[in-house]
């Protein structure tokens, strides 16, 4: 086998890395607009879904522009929300068992949930991953984050044997306890930021 000088090895390694870096930079920069567009479409589709509109990647942009209006809430204007007619869609994000989880909750005028949608990055398929299914999201419809007289913020919790009559309890996922706990914490932490809005009927 041929032997190589140290000088050759160092230069070879440097050249190889430079070529690789250049290639990656070109790819990353040239594909970035497309990737950002994809991410934006995904967010718009989720918001539309929470509002009850099923959109495909092709028509999501058009439907979003036609129906959804982004607004800032509360005095600091720091909280984002989206309006769909008189419904208000709030974002939530938190931690599941293996990675981030996030979602959008749609409330009607008296702060009752009319739709929800969740997604995750790496929860276990069939267990925690079930939060991304429609069957799970439907469990939230009719729930509320306030008591009936709008005097107190009451977080929605995921629990075993949830009482179907309760406005604040949702059945957790069997086998997905850690992810369910993550959803509970996410709903409590994110939605409580909006409680000043919720504590009076709109």
């Amino acid at each position, binding site marked *: *086998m*041929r032997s*190589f000088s140290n000088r*050759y*090895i160092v230069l*070879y*390694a440097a050249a*190889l*890395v430079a070529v*690789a870096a250049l*290639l*990656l930079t070109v*790819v*990353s920069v040239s*594909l970035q607009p*497309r*990737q950002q567009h*994809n*991410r934006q*479409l*995904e967010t718009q589709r989720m918001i539309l879904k929470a509002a009850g509109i099923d959109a495909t*990647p092709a028509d999501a942009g058009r439907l979003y522009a036609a129906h959804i209006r982004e607004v800032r809430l509360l005095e600091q204007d720091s909280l984002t929300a989206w309006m769909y007619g008189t419904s208000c869609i709030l974002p939530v994000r938190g931690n599941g068992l293996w990675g981030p989880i996030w979602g959008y909750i749609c409330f009607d005028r008296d702060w009752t949930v009319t739709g929800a949608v969740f997604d995750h*990055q*790496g929860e*276990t*398929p*069939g*267990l925690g991953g079930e939060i991304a299914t429609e069957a799970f999201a439907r469990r939230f419809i009719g729930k509320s984050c306030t008591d009936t007289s709008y005097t107190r913020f009451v977080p929605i919790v995921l629990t075993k044997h949830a009482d179907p009559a309760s406005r604040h309890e949702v059945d957790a996922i069997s*086998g997905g306890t850690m992810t369910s706990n993550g959803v509970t914490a996410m709903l409590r932490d994110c939605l409580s930021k909006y409680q000043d809005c919720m504590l009076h009927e709109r």
Partner: protein
Amino acid sequence: MPWSRQNPVTVQVLGVCSCLAVTAQLKPAVVMAASVTAVVMLSNLVISLLRHTIPPRIRIIVQLVVVATLVVVTDQLLKAYAYDVSRQLSVYVGLIITNCIVMGRLEAFAMTHGPWESLLDGLGNGLGYAFILVVLGVVRELFGSGTLWGFPVAERLGLYRLGYENNGLFVMAPMALILMGLVIWLQRNSDSGLQEK
């Protein structure tokens, strides 16, 4: 041949981790198989072309840089053109870098063979990997979710009305290992040349 008697997964038992992780549904399994095939073919080709210039003392690092570059490019392309699938595959596209099949073929074949042969070797090994991924993906999606490529097979056949339930075990990793064990068993049983004496 790499897709049967030298199958990287069932005979050499390489690349098992990703086989378990991405085969809960057929579509991500197929995209993953195509990605791995592309990466192993191209990296074989590049390393084969460079093989006389690569200093042996840093050859593993050179191989790793080439593989990592190709994998990151693949990942970026998927994010741009197959966003939904790339989200399902999540970290496993990046983990192609550590897939033993890729490094194994570079070290065992591309370093000592010409570009055309290396390209074909990559294709064969990629298809061998693809075969087992597709088998696992079909079985696991069909029995675990009652769908195939997202199409609701069990629902259309009316099985749920007959009291049929999806088997949740099939979507979990242990079942993939059991199924893969069955495939290996079937193959060794039917091919006496693979049996250890």
